[in-house]
């Protein structure tokens, strides 16, 4: 072989190697901050007032526009559309809550129905799983990151909503909103207290695990000094028949002991019990602990331990006792369930960042809604989450190089708008006081939402100043925000208008407890914006024939839009869309028949969302959950900032605005990657 032939052979080898390890196109990188709930009106006002200097700088250099959201404008729906480039009819996430058409009961929209029931062998009092029961992610479509990775683009996706259970991928992803705690839910905190806890200020049930404890006198010296409690972890599956319903007593527990000092100003906390695994902390009243490990033994002798982690907050040590424990989070360095792709990426992140919140939506809104946290307690916890986000963003920036794509999700604004809007409407200067306005704390916390925007501005500033030259930076949100002052119970409205009938002459009841007479019910509500017809052949006891569906939908829609709030005469519903008119058809059979777009200030009550029929249709919203976006999409658009000039959106698809699906198309187009079938967005560049 001549030297030329040899060189040629090596050249071919090099080319082959290059082809095998596909490299992405040689283009600048793309970094996206996805800020849940950021509103264009509030953003514009704060920029005009000079309070968002970095975002103003970004808008001046590139552009700032409202970004059309999806219908319904719910975070899991909207982010799933961004992820897949599909509308809800394509990806199949229609609401936070779906319904089982056979039983009519509410089910999670995040997971697909289990088609292969769990099986187990029973030996003594133990059940050993032998398969089945696998729970998958319900989202259909191809995530944009899979297309990018296939094209050789290094892609890192941080805390993406709706990605748990985590589907397989070659991209680096960590799941966000929807990621469960160790119990398998969306986060149940524990409250150790020596006093009974009243119901929520709004009358609803408390969401936390309330443990009424005694402060014991361990050494009988006359001074109470110790508290023993338990933290619930994963379901005790080895003691549960595969088809058994999980009740409150069916969870594995880990012990926790609190030792108080003489003056009850400080507490020594030990997780675990006896000589078992334990972690320790000393806290003063009002302090938060770092993450502490807890271990759950699924089998005797420590043969199958599951590790979780928890943070404590010493709310009150004396004279009363009240200590908060966070939901037991999955440990990123040793996850009991995968929360990333690849599986071990969470451990890599933990090695660089230390432990961080892994539960989706980790801001402790429940303890605030339950009245156990005050605003200062809540904001203290929010600051911990924000620090996680800041550190993760710094890490993502440090790893970001030319040709890379990175997405970072930021939850700060969304949940704080939900919880703190009651202190002062940041969007409508002439708004009346919110029904949940609190005399004692409103003035002190009036500008809290503004502060959240300023935190995001600072984060955006870090990104702007540290991206490699030439990189594209987009800051986008899934929807905006509005006040939530009046609750509507859609099921009660359906009852009052003769579309839903209760059994035995009842006037109140719930769908899951079988109070509804399905032989006379033509429509029902499960979910925040979803109405379903009781269709023959689809619902378990359907009575509405296909031929009458269109006229019934039109009748209900017309009545809802014409509805006026008896308190003030305001319009309640701005629009009602038929899903078959606005959605793609891939998963149309699972879609609600009607999507209710509430007007500003109105929203479906939590009770109706889960199938409850209450006495009254309307009520003032006295819950601390006081801002909302589950409305007509036109009143809650999101934002789009870019560091490259934004073209005129006049030709864009959605009402003169770019929309979420266009951002997906933009991401793919940036890297010269063809969209997947069904993607309909148009690249903005």
């Amino acid at each position, binding site marked *: 072989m001549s030297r030329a032939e040899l060189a040629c052979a090596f050249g071919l080898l090099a080319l082959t190697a290059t082809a095998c390890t596909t490299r992405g196109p040689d283009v600048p990188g793309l970094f996206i901050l996805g800020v849940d709930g950021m509103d264009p009106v509030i953003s514009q006002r704060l920029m005009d007032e000079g309070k968002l200097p970095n975002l103003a700088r970004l808008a001046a250099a590139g552009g700032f526009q409202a970004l059309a959201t999806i219908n319904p404008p719910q975070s899991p729906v909207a982010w799933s559309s961004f992820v897949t480039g599909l509308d809800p009819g394509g990806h199949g996430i229609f609401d936070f809550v779906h319904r089982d058409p056979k039983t009519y009961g509410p089910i999670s929209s995040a997971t697909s129905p289990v088609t292969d029931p769990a099986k187990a062998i029973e030996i003594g009092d133990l059940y050993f799983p032998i398969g089945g029961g696998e729970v998958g992610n319900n989202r259909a479509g191809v995530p944009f990151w899979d297309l990018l990775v296939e094209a050789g683009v290094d892609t890192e996706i941080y805390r993406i909503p709706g990605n748990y259970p985590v589907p397989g991928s070659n991209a680096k992803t960590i799941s966000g909103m929807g990621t469960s705690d160790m119990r398998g839910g969306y986060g149940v905190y524990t409250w150790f207290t020596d006093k009974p806890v009243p119901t929520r200020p709004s009358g609803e049930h408390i969401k936390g695990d309330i443990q009424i404890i005694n402060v014991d006198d361990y050494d009988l010296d006359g001074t109470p*000094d110790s508290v023993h409690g338990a933290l619930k972890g994963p379901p005790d599956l080895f003691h549960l028949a595969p088809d058994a319903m999980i009740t409150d007593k069916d969870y594995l527990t880990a012990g926790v002991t609190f*030792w108080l000092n003489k003056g009850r100003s400080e507490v020594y906390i030990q997780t675990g019990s006896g000589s078992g695994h334990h972690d320790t*902390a000393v806290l003063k009243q009002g*302090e938060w602990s770092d993450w502490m490990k807890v271990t759950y033994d699924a089998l005797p002798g420590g043969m199958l331990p599951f590790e979780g982690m928890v943070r404590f907050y010493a709310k009150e040590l004396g004279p009363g006792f009240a200590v908060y424990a966070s939901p037991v989070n999955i440990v990123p360095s040793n996850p009991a369930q995968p929360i990333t792709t690849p599986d071990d990426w969470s451990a890599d992140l933990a090695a660089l960042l230390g432990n961080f919140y892994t539960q989706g939506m980790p801001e402790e809104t429940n303890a605030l809604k339950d009245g156990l946290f005050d605003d200062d307690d809540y904001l203290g916890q929010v600051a911990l989450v924000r620090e996680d986000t800041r550190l993760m963003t710094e890490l993502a920036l440090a790893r970001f190089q030319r040709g890379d794509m990175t997405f970072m999700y930021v939850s700060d604004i969304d949940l704080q708008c939900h919880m703190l809007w009651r202190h002062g409407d940041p969007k409508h200067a002439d708004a009346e006081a919110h029904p949940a306005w609190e005399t004692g704390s409103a003035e002190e916390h009036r500008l809290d939402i503004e502060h959240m925007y300023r935190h995001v501005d600072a984060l955006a500033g870090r990104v702007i100043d540290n991206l490699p030259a030439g990189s594209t930076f987009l800051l986008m949100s899934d929807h905006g925000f509005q006040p939530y002052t009046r609750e509507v119970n859609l099921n009660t409205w359906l009852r009052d208008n003769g579309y839903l009938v209760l059994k035995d002459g009842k006037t109140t009841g719930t769908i899951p407890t079988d109070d509804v007479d399905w032989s006379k019910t033509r429509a029902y509500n499960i979910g925040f914006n979803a109405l379903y017809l009781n269709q023959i052949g689809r619902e378990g006891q359907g009575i509405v024939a296909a031929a009458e569906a269109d006229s019934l939908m039109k009748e209900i829609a017309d009545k809802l839009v014409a509805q006026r709030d008896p308190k003030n005469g305001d319009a309640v519903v701005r629009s009602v869309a038929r899903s078959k008119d606005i959605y793609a058809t891939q998963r149309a059979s699972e879609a609600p028949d009607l999507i209710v777009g509430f007007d500003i200030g109105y929203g479906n009550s939590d009770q109706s969302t889960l199938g409850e029929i209450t006495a009254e249709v309307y009520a003032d919203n006295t819950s601390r959950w006081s801002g909302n976006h589950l409305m007509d999409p036109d009143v809650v658009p999101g934002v789009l900032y870019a560091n490259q000039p934004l073209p005129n959106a006049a030709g864009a698809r959605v009402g003169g605005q770019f929309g979420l699906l266009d951002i997906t198309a933009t991401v793919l187009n940036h890297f010269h990657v063809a969209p997947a079938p069904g993607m309909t967005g148009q690249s903005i560049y």
Partner: protein
Amino acid sequence: MNALISLLNMVFDVILAPFGHRFASFDLIVWPVLAGVIALLVYKKVSNQKGIAAAKNGIQVHLLEIVLYRDNLAGVLVATANAMKQNALYLGNNIGPMLVMMPPMTAVLVEIVANYAYSPLPVDATPLLEVKMAEGASVKSMDVTLDLPAGLSVDAGPVATPDGMVAWRLKAETAGDYVVTVHAGTEAQQKGLAFGGEPRKIPVLRTNTWESILYPGEDALPSDSAFETIRTHYSDRDLPYFPDGEGGILLWFFGFSLAAGFALKGPLGVEL
């Protein structure tokens, strides 16, 4: 115990970390390999090499017998029993050498752990200093006091538990090695804390039990001490290629020492 710990420290403080503690890989490879080689030579000296060879040969013969006469149930059962007997002989021949080699191997391992398994505390950390009173101690945990050197302060605590624990949360002003003094009646014991700076030998735990040999970063507590343990928790040190901390070091140590032993058993003529 302290004499033994001092002797081991004297030896290993010289031979470990010749290039400083930063290059963990050097000591984590060289010493396990050397330990493997030395263990091999010791094993050759102290073991019954002929007996081991005979037992291994016997195991092979009876396994072959099982394969060849698999249609003869009685033959297979007898061969299995004989193979198990030879296995027992093989294990018996190994017990003595194991007992001889265990102490030096353990000494090497615990010294490597003390030097490489833990990271100094971050300067902004607020670690707990936790004291466990010895059973039957005449001083109550509530009466234990703490003296701190300049630059170190109590951030919270003490919280003393009636079951014999005392905990303080401490805070350092700057990086450095600090020594605190814990008092119980007339007894005073010191405990080191390492904040910030380069990786180094970490003072994790002082105890008056046999476990002190596993923590050569500091002297053992006297056997009649009022304290059973005085400890501070340190984070695992990031180690290249293997799990962090003690688990990683165990993998490094046994991985390399076994690899070296098996690689060199032929050239050194050792029957394992």
